[in-house]
């Protein structure tokens, strides 16, 4: 199985093949002698790379997870080939989609309205969480389709904020 893993914004290609009960793993074309042993159902892992050992922890599921290895945290997004192709196709015919809050908070100000054309990186709204104001930027260039929230509204984590239709590439 071939996977595309994005780790803290760096891309890696990982291939996992089972042969005679063993997993053969390559990262970016190079074989890696990695032993993965789940200690419990909670996410503790005994990880060995060659002779080296790592008491690692994993949080999350098949598409997004976070690995903590020796105190450092790696956020990993994974796509397989089918998913990658589907995502590319969606982008090609104008993807975009729902933009969700990354944390719970209160919508302080909204800078755009439905129909606005926005550039990737452009500020869309301000979300206040704890005592900090955070600008939420457009992830893609496109058109604002729908705005789900209003100023002053409290939102949960991963709640839909607005929808953008991406401009075709």
């Amino acid at each position, binding site marked *: 199985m071939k996977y595309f893993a994005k*780790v803290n914004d760096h891309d890696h290609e990982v291939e996992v093949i089972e042969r005679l009960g063993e997993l053969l793993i390559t990262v970016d074309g190079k074989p890696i002698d*990695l032993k993965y042993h789940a200690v419990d159902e909670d996410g503790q892992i005994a990880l060995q790379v060659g002779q080296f050992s790592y008491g690692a922890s994993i949080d999350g599921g*098949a598409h997004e997870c976070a*690995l903590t290895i020796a105190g450092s945290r790696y956020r990993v997004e994974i796509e397989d080939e089918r998913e990658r192709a589907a995502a590319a196709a969606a982008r090609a015919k104008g993807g975009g989609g729902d933009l969700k809050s990354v944390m719970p908070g209160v919508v302080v100000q909204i800078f755009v309205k439905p129909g606005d054309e926005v550039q990737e990186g452009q500020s869309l709204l301000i979300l206040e969480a704890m005592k900090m104001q955070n600008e939420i930027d457009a992830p893609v260039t496109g058109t604002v389709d729908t705005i789900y929230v209003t100023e002053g509204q409290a939102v949960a984590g991963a709640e839909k904020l607005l929808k953008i239709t991406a401009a075709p590439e």
Partner: protein
Amino acid sequence: MFKRILIANRGEIALRVIRTAREMDVECVAIYSEPDASSLHTRFAELAYPLGGKTPAESYLDVEKVLRAAKETGAEAIHPGYGFLSENADFARRVEAAGLVWIGPPADAIVAMGDKIGSRQLMGKAGVPIVPGLSEPVADVAESIAAANEIGYPIALKASAGGGGKGIRIVREESEMEAAFRNASAEALTSFGDGRMYPERYLEKPRHIEIQVMFDRHGNGVHLGERECSIQRRHQKLVEECPSPIVTPEMRAAMGKAAIDAAQAVGYRGAGTVEFLVSKGEFFFLEMNTRLQVEHPITEMVTGRDLVRDQLRVAYGEKLGYTQDDVKMTGWSIEVRINAEDPTNNFLPSTGTIGNLRFPGGPWVRLDSALYPGLEVGLNYDPMLAKLIVWGPDRDTAIRRMRRALEELNVGGISTGAPAALRVLNEKPFIDGDYDTHFLESLDLKQDSRNLGAVAAAAACVHRWHLARRRALQPDAGSRAGWIDRARRITSDF
């Protein structure tokens, strides 16, 4: 000693007080909001009183509810912890009016130190060093030069009407003053319609260093040395150490005396912290925190004194029982705050359900933690969930021990600031002790300093592969009946 006290707080600080109180045979009353019914402080206290309510305002900040809880449980005193009502002078007065003991300083001391500007003027009068500057703005270059000569260079020229750093100019010698004043004043006039300027000493490479003090009701007081708290972002501390790598015994004595003077100037009692800004060997009063500080454990590790125990003792009326000469600092201690936040995303708060906990241990590792599997971390409460503390005979050992402990720690379900702290502990300026309050914000915390990104990618993909394999092995429609039968057998034990 008190038979029973109420802790008007939650989380790790409530637990901290419960632990010492239990060791003193003082019963604790925990109060708890609805979301905190399962909290460790609720479970570990001898008594637990439900306040009801979901938000802080409906529970821990509701003075009437807290006082009623104390009355109904027969508590003799109230420990406020930090945050919530701990620096609320009105609450302190209400507690005493209800015939209870307030485990904290006199309300008047809270008031006097609660006003940032007023407290600095008061301290200036008491002979405590404050940042040199004028209390009135200057209107032209000549006045500015005269003031600067009095204050001493380098000077920070700040716009009288300004804020947010706009219009600030750093002036290092008199020859630079004329041009700097004209530019800054013009900029200020344009921006704010007011060209007047405040000259103040500019503090280069400022460090945040604070002194712990403890006073009884009988006029006895000591300082317990300093804590270095310069690893911070937006004034939120992340890593603290005790002692400070730059404080000499002479400087400690001078800062200690200033802290005692500051406390005595407001008739202080109990535990308190006098915060200073330190630059080029000079120190200046910043503010006083009239309560127990989050980072008090590093002082405990180095002095061997239980500060909560002393708080309870002096609040009860006992004499301090030791003098300045009895306070010895041995070795080095470091604390890392474990906050629910994402250091790779500008320390935005992180929320989730705690799981997959792995706690560090072994020699000279202390964990003050409110974490438990199932804890819901939301936005209603302080994101500080735990504090990891180490001690070592010297700074080098303490740093290495903290790195080791951070590598052992795992907190699942949320993101924490721990990786950022680990990064700090591996940076040369920190190891050299040569850092200031800007250091943490200068780091690129997205960097993969351990270079394990490829390993993480491989492990995550193997994890996904196993998840998919497990799904593939799950019973299909045909075998499902048998599977259910088995489930029925397992649950038929009742």
